[in-house]
Structures are given as structure tokens and as C-alpha cells.
């Protein structure tokens, strides 16, 4: 793909690429589809009690007088953020080394491992909870009932996304040879992981982190059925009495996640990616990087969409 040289002139339909105007139209339509609900939510939050528009509901949210009413919501947000951090830590500290190990040292296990990682998607969340409930009775007895234990279940939920994101990068970087080169140059396994693998799968790790945050912040079924207060659970509760506060919080969380997504997606690694076959022409090389960069994010977005 990177090898084919693309003519710079527009409307080069022969090469399989749609003309510029079509691309732009598609982009605008898709952005519109994303924006309409957000704008609708925003419009809703501005509706005043007595008709007309104003910031009444936004002000009410930060009004100290209402702090009791929103106490659960604040707690839920705090819990969700904590869970997101812990789950991300699980992805980094547990999943990444495991995936690398399976991929490089025990390639025979890769098949079984891959199947395993699909299970959390294949099994409906409600069924998962039925299985998790008795487990959590034991977990509560052993580790206590603190909210962080929920991160263990979340780790399972995000495994499919984290796995995909990391493995595709790992395969793309030719990890085996790089690891062997680093090892023979005297690097310990930890150094290999930190100095060679992590920079190599940076983009995959970034999207894994982001998706993890998105999944955890958006998760409702498991936390609700296990009686934990997370942001989504609190939102449902608040929406019963104050739909405006619920929509404002949802809107903010969506905007923050989108912002994070764009920030992470636009970061370019310093060394950029190695082009196989050596001296690729600079313009084509950057074009290839740009296209390959967009793919993982959109693909994983689709997966999140399918799951939710």
C-alpha cells in the first residue's frame, strides 16, 4: 500500500481513491451525525423553566445549595475516574507484558489467547454479571467492598479492545527481530519492554488507553447490577429527578472523551514509523503514515459502538 505512488492530482478514481469533494462530503456528513446529538443535548440544557434559553441549569449544577442533591453524582464521577485509572493501569502493567509474552515467546498460545479475548464481547454483559456476582461476594470478603475492586471486572471488559489495539501494532513493528536484537545487545526483558516495545506500540497503547477510559466511563450494566455507584449509575439516578443535570454531565463527559481522542490521534511519534524496504520517498511515506494512523482509531471506535 505504501509502495503505490499516488498522483497528486484530484479525481484520481483509477487508483481507487475517491475524489476530494466526495471525501469532504463524507467527512462532513459523518461529523454532522456526531454533532447533531451533541448540539441537541446542549440545546436541551439551555431550556429555562419558564421558557426561553439561559444557563439556569448549568448554574444550578455548581450551586453549593444543591450539593446534597448531586452528592451521588459527584461520588459517581470520582469513582468512575478512579476506576478508569486503575483499569488503564491493569492494561499497562498486566495486559501489555502478557500480550508481548504470548506474541513473542509462546506464539502457539496466541490462537487460544485471541479466542479468550473475544469472549467478553461475545458474552452479553448481563450474563457476565450473573457469573461475576458470586465471585464478587468472595472478593468483597477477601479484599473488602471498596469501589476499586470493580476495576477487576472492567479489566475483562476492555481486554478485547486493548488486545486488538496492541497486537496490531506489535505485528506491524516486526517486534520479534527488534526484541531479539535488543536482547543480544544486552537488554533485560524489562528494558526491552520499556525501550523497544512501548515506543513501538505507542499508538496502539494510546488507543488501548483511550478505549479503556471510554469503556470504563461509559459502563453501566455491570456496575449497576453489582450495586456500585459509578458515573453512569449516578446519572440514571439523577436523571429521574433532574434530567438537565444528567444531560449536562453526559454532554461534558462526551466532549472530554472526544477532545482526548483528537489530542491523542494527532500526536506524531518523533521517529515515525519504519518503512519496510528502506528508502521510501518522503511524501508517500508520510501519506502512508497518515492513513495508517487513522485506521486503528476508527476501527476501534466501531467496536465500541457495536458493544454499546
Amino acid at each position, binding site marked *: 500500500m505504501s509502495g503505490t505512488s499516488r498522483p497528486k492530482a484530484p479525481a484520481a478514481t483509477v487508483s481507487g481513491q475517491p475524489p476530494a469533494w466526495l471525501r469532504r462530503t463524507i467527512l462532513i456528513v459523518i461529523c454532522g451525525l456526531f454533532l447533531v446529538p451533541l448540539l441537541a443535548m446542549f440545546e436541551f440544557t439551555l431550556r429555562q423553566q419558564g421558557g426561553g434559553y439561559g444557563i439556569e441549569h448549568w448554574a444550578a449544577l455548581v450551586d453549593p445549595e444543591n450539593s446534597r442533591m448531586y452528592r451521588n453524582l459527584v461520588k459517581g464521577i470520582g469513582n468512575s475516574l478512579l476506576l478508569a485509572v486503575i483499569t488503564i493501569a491493569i492494561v499497562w502493567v498486566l495486559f501489555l507484558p502478557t500480550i508481548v509474552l504470548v506474541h513473542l515467546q509462546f506464539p502457539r498460545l496466541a490462537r487460544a489467547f485471541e479466542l479468550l479475548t473475544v469472549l467478553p464481547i461475545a458474552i452479553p454483559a448481563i450474563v457476565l454479571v450473573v457469573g461475576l456476582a458470586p465471585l464478587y461476594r468472595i472478593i468483597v470478603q477477601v479484599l473488602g467492598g471498596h469501589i476499586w475492586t470493580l476495576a477487576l471486572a472492567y479489566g475483562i471488559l476492555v481486554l478485547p479492545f486493548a488486545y486488538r489495539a496492541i497486537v496490531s501494532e506489535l505485528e506491524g513493528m516486526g517486534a520479534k527481530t527488534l526484541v531479539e536484537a535488543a536482547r543480544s545487545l544486552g537488554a533485560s526483558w524489562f528494558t526491552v519492554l520499556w525501550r523497544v516495545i512501548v515506543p513501538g506500540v505507542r499508538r496502539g497503547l494510546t488507543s488501548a488507553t483511550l478505549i479503556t477510559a471510554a469503556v470504563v466511563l461509559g459502563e453501566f450494566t455491570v456496575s449497576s447490577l453489582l450495586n456500585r455507584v459509578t458515573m453512569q449509575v449516578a446519572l440514571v439516578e439523577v436523571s429521574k429527578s433532574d434530567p438537565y443535570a444528567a444531560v449536562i454531565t453526559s454532554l461534558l463527559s462526551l466532549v472530554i472523551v472526544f477532545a482526548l481522542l483528537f489530542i491523542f490521534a494527532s500526536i506524531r511519534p518523533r521517529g515515525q514509523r519504519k518503512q519496510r524496504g*528502506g528508502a521510501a520517498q518522503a511524501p508517500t511515506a508520510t501519506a502512508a503514515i497518515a492513513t495508517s494512523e487513522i485506521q486503528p482509531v476508527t476501527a476501534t471506535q466501531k467496536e465500541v459502538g457495536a458493544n454499546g
Partner: protein
Amino acid sequence: MADTSNAAAAAAAQKGTPIVFESVTKAYGDTTVLHGIDLSIAPGEFVALLGPSGCGKTTMLRCLAGLEQPTSGRILVGGEDVSPVPVNKRDMSVVFQAYSLFPHMTVAQNVGFGLEMRKVGKAERATRVAEALELVGLGHTADRYAHQLSGGQQQRVALARALVTKPRALLLDEPLSALDAKVRVRLRDEIKAIQVELGITTIFVTHDQEEALAVADRVAVMREGVIEQLGAPEDLYRRPETPFVASFIGESNKLAGVLTGGRVRVPGAVLPVLPAAISALDEGGSAAGTTEVTAFVRPEQLRLEALSGAEGTEQDGLVATVVSSGFFGAHRRTVVRADSGETITVQHSTGEQFAAEQQVVLRYSGEAVAVEAR
């Protein structure tokens, strides 16, 4: 005793490290890829492991590097059994076939990686990295990234990265296979020059016989997990000990022959046979019965003469018809067909020219040839 071993160690440090394979076997489940390999490599020697793909040459190198564990047997590096030593402590550098530069590091950072792992100070690191890059002629690329280099340059950097730590041995795993023919030859010669300059023990895995013969002090020809023959390039070419080596190294015409009294009768001549080939047949157990053999005759062991009018008077020659003739710069190759239908390739000087359909006489130089039971 202690003194002598110290002296030996000091000498080894200067002139490279000896490496010994002692009945090294490697099996993956039921498939055995190395059958008790014995190989002794002198300090500073350049040994090539040559063979077709799947012959175990790369596995052998990987066992030495520590990237694979032998199923049984020992590998001694500088007299020390390295079996319990993990890859990162073996102090042997590998240059791989696949480009293996770290893509997120500059050339200088790549080359300095091994020194960093050995906790070499920043200032010394910079000097040694610069030296190593100079050695491979890439001093000007220090700040570039791998994707900004050509394939040949990437492999040079990989070579610099391997050499900068002054390892006990340099292990080259088909480092030239991904390169263009011209770059391949140039880099091959440079590797040889650098190896001679540094005196580092070097093992070079390749499936390209020309490459192996050109650079190595000794070549180990491997097949199906065993070393078929180990020797200087010229020995392998002139005195192949097994039919496999005879047909794998260089080119040969395979002619049907009959063995009689240590000599082989081929169409148009009776030729002496290499002693190793005779003993190989003996070991085969069928020597007494086997007289039907295939003789391996090199194209340069043959010559052609235009057929003179006096036919039938030829003593040791074979009348044949020229099929085609090709020009190869330094020499010419002519393919002829004998009356029996065999096609035979002859290499001769460009001064002689033969036209297609021309009747010629094929003569043998009389050098000993290898044979194989038919």
C-alpha cells in the same frame, strides 16, 4: 596453570574468542533440526554456515546467540559453557536478515544502545559510536532514523551496532539476503575487510554459496541438521567429500559412469575419482556391488575442440553437437549434446567460439571427480 590460562585469555581478548559446539542437538517436538553438531572455531576465524533453507544453519547460530536452547550438547565460548547464560549476558552480537534498527531511535542512539546496556558513560559512548559509524562509512547519518536510510545503509548501521560493544563473536544471520545484488557484493567485501581488521570471531549464515566462499576462512556445508563437510572454500570446491557438497557447491555436469578399479568410465574418458568419494561409497555398504555411478564434472574441467577431418581416431574424447553458446564476460559457456542425448556444459575462454550445430570433440582435463551411487 593459572598463568597460562590468563595469558590465553588475554590473547583471546585481543584476537577473538574460540567457540566450540559439542554434539549440539536441537529438536522441536518430533522434528530434529540439529543432529549432534560438532564444530570448533578458532579465535578470530571467519566461518560460514552454508546450506539450503531448513538445513539448521540459522538454528545453530540462534543456539549460539542464546535465542534458542539446544536440546542437548554444549556450546563453549572462550572455554566456558554458555548454556546457562541468557541472551543478554552472552556478549555476542547478531546482525539479522530482517532490518532490525529500532525505528524510534536515531542511528546514533541505535548504535549506542548496546553500550548503554553495558553502562558505558555518555562521553565514551559518543566517541565509540562515532568510531563504529566511521568504520562502516556512515558517520554522516548519526542523526537520521532508520526509515530515512536505504536497506544497505540500515544493515551497515546494524553492523556498527553489533561491533561497537566489542563482542566476543559477531553472528551474521543472512544479513545480505534482503539487499540488491550490487550492494550485497560490496557490503560482503566490507564485512570481510572489517572482520580481518578487528580479528573478531565471526559466524556467517548464508544460503548463497558464492557469498560463503568469498568471505569465509572455512565453510561448513550443512544439510538436514548435519555438517556435510567443513573446510576451506577451495577444498569444498575441488575436493567435495559427499555428493551433496559436490552438487551444492559450484556447478557440475552429472554424467552417467561406471566405476572400475578406483576410476570412473564416463562417455569419452576414464577419470580418476576423489578418494573421499570412494570411501563414501564404501561406507554406503554397496561398494562391491555398485559400479553404476553419477560423476560430477565441472564445466571448467572440460574443453572443446572443433572436429577434425580424421574422425574415429580420437583416443579420449567424445563427439558432440553444439546446442548453444553464451558469453559471460570473463569466459564463455557452451552447451553440447552428446550422441547419447546427454547435455553437457563446458566453460572455456572467450577466444574460442563455437557455432550451434557444429560438431565438436569434448575432452576432459583428467582431474579427479566426485561420484555418487546411481
